[in-house]
Structures are given as C-alpha cells and as structure tokens.
C-alpha cells in the first residue's frame, strides 16, 4: 500500500479499500451502477484466499453477510437502490442482533425499478430504514473518490466498534467517475470481538445471537440499550464539513457528490457579493442536528441542494425548527444540478421566490 495517487473509479476505490480494511468475505449480486465492486472483488478475493460469493439474490447476500460477521470477521455486500430495498428486513435483524454488517449502496433512480441514472433518492431508505421496529443504522456519505476510500475504512471500523450495521451511501455518479485518490494504510485499530463473536463454544459457555424477544421487560431494555448506544455514537462520531460559515447569510447544504457543486456555487455567489457558506454532513446518521440548530440560532438561512424531492431537507428543517428560513433546490434524478442552476436557485430563494424542482 502506498500514498501514491492513482486515477480510479469510485466503485473500484470502495472495493480496494474494503480489501485494505481486512474484509474477509464479500457476498453480492450484480446491479448497475455498482457492479464493478463485485467484479473487482471476484478476482481480488480469490488472489488473497478470501471469500467471494456471487449470491443467488440480494436477500441471500445480506443474510450471508450477517452469518459471516457473527463469527467476528469483517464482511460486506454492495448493491443499489431497488435491490437494497430487498435487504431492509435483514438490516432490522442485524441492528437488533448488533451485527457489524457493512452495506454499500451506490444509488440509482427509483421508485420501483427506476433506472440506472444517478440519484440521491435513498436518503430516507438509508437513514430511516425500511425494516421494522425501532432501530438505527450508521450512514456515511462520501463526496469524492478519495472519500470512497476513507469512509469505507471508517465503515468497517465503526461497524465493529459499535456492533452496528453501517451503510456507505454513494451514488451512480461517484461509482462511475474516476478521480485521483490514494489508499495509504487502513488507519484504524483492530477491534476486539472475542467477547461476543460466535467462534465455537469449546472451553466456554455457548453464545447465542438472536432477535426473538418473548420477555417484554427484556425487550424494552434491549430497545433502550440500542438507543443509548446510538446516543454514544451520535456524541462521538457525528461529522460534518463547513466552508465560509462564519459570515454566511445563506448556507448551501448538500450531501454526497453534490457537495463539490455547492462549493463551486458558493464561490460564484461570493464573487457576486452574496455571503454564502456551505455545510455538508459526512454522517447522515447520526445527523449533525446540533450544529445546524446553532447556525439557525445565529440567523443563518439554509438552501438544501439534493437530487431527490427533499429528503435531507426535512432533517435540516427539523434541526432549524423555525429559527431561520430553509429552502429546497432540487431535481429528482439524472443530470446533477449544475453550478449555474444552483446559483440561480439561491438567488431566487433569497428574493423570496421558490426554487422547488429546478426543472419543472
């Protein structure tokens, strides 16, 4: 491993980072725009004597990951939008069973089968989940190919550190594009899993991992414990980036690969004398509610820019809680909002107009 920069696709960067992070098993089923992850690992895992299974379905893949990680090894699957929908039941089980599942979602367009255009419509699916019950997933959203590497490393670490499923939420644009990135070494310590992993009960009491809860009191406590754990995660792991925030009157807010577009739009607005800043959550769950509340209390307005019909927009509004104005600049899918469209949208909302769905 080296710090030398290589020109690499987001999908391959995620795959190689998983290898570097010590992922021992990959289970997956092909779907555009993330198929390169499985393609890359199909060869690489064999070379390294690790496990690669092209599963019979997405259901098979995610359940295989649950089985593998329950033995204490690092394992992952990757998929896209409509196929990640099939995995939601398993994520609910994995959260309840406290299994360090790592799932990569390279988003495409929905709802339904949709198509392979890039989109950001799975924010709710990732952050709020489609599984049953009161559970929470850690969600990391890379904005560049370099971050595909860095946040894949972090996903494996956080999953084991907190025994909680982690979703790496990328998008088709990031998966398909190439950009210089360097891998370096896996920067996190190995987590001790010997206290819970199912490694054979020879010489110790047998362990069980299950989610059935016929005892009401224990189940109440279990849910409290899961949520207490997530409070710790929120306290320790909430991360965000901000630019030119101190004197900003309007804060452009985006996640994932839209971040570079809002930064460029911010620079254009600044050159026109508009005091614009940028805010970008790196962890979508836990979400940086507190920081957004602080900024709203200082009177800063928000313009949320995203490729969906306003999903993160609701979280920003919740955090702002009426203390300042929040507008949405969006398109449902396809070609990313251009810098010019974002600038025009911000100018419109600053004059009290609507920038809703820039294209309709």
């Amino acid at each position, binding site marked *: 491993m080296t710090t030398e920069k290589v020109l690499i696709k987001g999908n391959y960067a995620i795959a190689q980072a998983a290898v570097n992070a010590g992922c021992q098993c990959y289970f997956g089923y092909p779907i555009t725009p993330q198929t390169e992850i499985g393609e890359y690992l199909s060869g690489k895992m064999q070379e390294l004597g690790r496990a690669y299974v092209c599963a019979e379905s997405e259901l098979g893949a995610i359940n295989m990951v649950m089985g593998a990680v329950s033995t204490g090894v690092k394992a992952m699957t990757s998929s896209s939008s409509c196929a990640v929908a099939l995995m939601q039941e398993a994520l609910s089980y994995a959260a309840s069973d406290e299994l360090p599942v790592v799932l990569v979602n390279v988003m495409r367009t929905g709802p339904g089968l949709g198509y*392979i255009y890039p989109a950001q419509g799975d924010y709710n699916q990732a952050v709020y989940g489609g599984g049953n019950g009161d559970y929470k997933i850690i969600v990391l959203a890379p904005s560049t190919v370099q971050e595909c590497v860095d946040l894949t490393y972090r996903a494996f670490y956080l999953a084991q550190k907190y025994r909680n499923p982690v979703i790496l939420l990328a998008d088709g644009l990031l998966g398909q*594009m190439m950009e210089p990135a360097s891998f370096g070494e896996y920067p996190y310590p190995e987590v001790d899993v010997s206290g819970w992993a199912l490694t054979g009960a020879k010489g110790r009491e047998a362990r069980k991992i299950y989610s059935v809860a016929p005892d009401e009191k224990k189940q109440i406590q279990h849910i409290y414990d899961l949520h207490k754990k997530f409070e710790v995660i929120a306290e320790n792991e909430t991360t965000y980036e901000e630019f030119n925030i101190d004197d900003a009157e309007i804060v452009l807010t985006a996640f994932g690969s839209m971040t570079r577009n809002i*930064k460029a739009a911010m*620079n254009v607005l600044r050159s026109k004398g508009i005091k614009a800043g940028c805010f970008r959550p790196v962890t979508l769950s836990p979400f940086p509610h507190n920081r957004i509340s602080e900024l709203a209390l200082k009177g800063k307005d928000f313009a949320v820019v995203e490729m969906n019909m306003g999903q993160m927009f609701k979280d920003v509004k919740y955090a702002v809680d009426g203390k300042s104005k929040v507008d949405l600049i969006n398109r449902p899918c396809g070609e990313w909002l251009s810098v010019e469209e974002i600038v025009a949208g911000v100018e419109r909302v600053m004059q009290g107009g609507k920038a809703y769905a820039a294209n309709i």
Partner: protein
Amino acid sequence: METNFIIAGFGGQGVLLAGTVLANAFMIEGKNVTWYPCYGAEMRGGTVNCEIVVSDTEVSSVHKQDTDFALVLNQQSFDKFVQRVKSGGTIVANSTLVAESRPRSDIKYVFAPMTKIANDMGNGKVTNVVSLGVLSSVCKIVSKDFLAKGVEKVLGEKKKSLLPLNLKALENGAASLALV
C-alpha cells in the same frame, strides 16, 4: 481556471480509454481532474462518450451542460456534440469519418484524418491515441509529454510492448496539422 473536454465516438474506438489517458496525464501533471463516462444500456457500435474536467482548484462539477473542447471520432458524435461546444470553444474531428462542415460560426473547427493516420501506421486501433496527439497541438493545456506519461501509465507493465506504437501515434497525431 477550469477546462472540460468531451471525447466521443463509436463503442470500440477507444474513447473511454483516450479519456483515461488524458485524465492520467493531467493527474501526473499535478492538476485536479475528474473523468465521467456516459453509462447506460450501451451496445457495440453505438455511440459512447466521456467527460474530463481539469482544474487548478477543486473540480466544480463533474458533468456539465457544455464543453470547452469536443474531440469527436465519428459523424454521429460530431452532429451531437457540435451543439454542446461553448461559444468560442473548439471541436476537433476525425475527418476520415466526419464530413467537413461548419454548422456554427461561433466555435473553432479542427479536422484531422485520425483513422487514416492510424491505418497508415498499420494499426487502426491507435486512432484514439492519434486523436489525443491532435488535441495536444490545438489545446495549450494538453501537454504531449504528459500524454506520453499517461499512455505509459495506462498501458502498465503488462502491455509495455505496445508503448512505442502508441508514442508514435501520439507524435503523428500532433504533427498532422502541421502537414495540412
């Protein structure tokens, strides 16, 4: 300062690879660069393109409406992308397969017989590298020397035997306009 390029042609002409070489050349030069392909239900013989954005600072957006330079290797790509060149921009076309026409008066046109140059070298497959040579002679920020390093990097150890042929293709492409 940010400049973008669209490279387009038939599937099989090596346009994605040409884009990869160009992006590697910019990376080796120490610039910020992104490469983004059209991706979809493509088929052999259909048209394909990729977009390269190079910038001194962080790249602003990876996929843009219009382009500073379009490098087009077939007629369909010429017809499509001549409309997407910025006013004052340049379209560089493979005149072996593209009829010389100038449908707009606000852009520059460069025609070079790229496929013929490659065929004359005995290998039509290097049309894509010839096209990069042509581009380097009309676009100041594209350096032939860094393109050579980009070609070397993309070929890697496995295909090193093809390096002399590709470097020659680059030279012949760059020299072609002087001959016209």
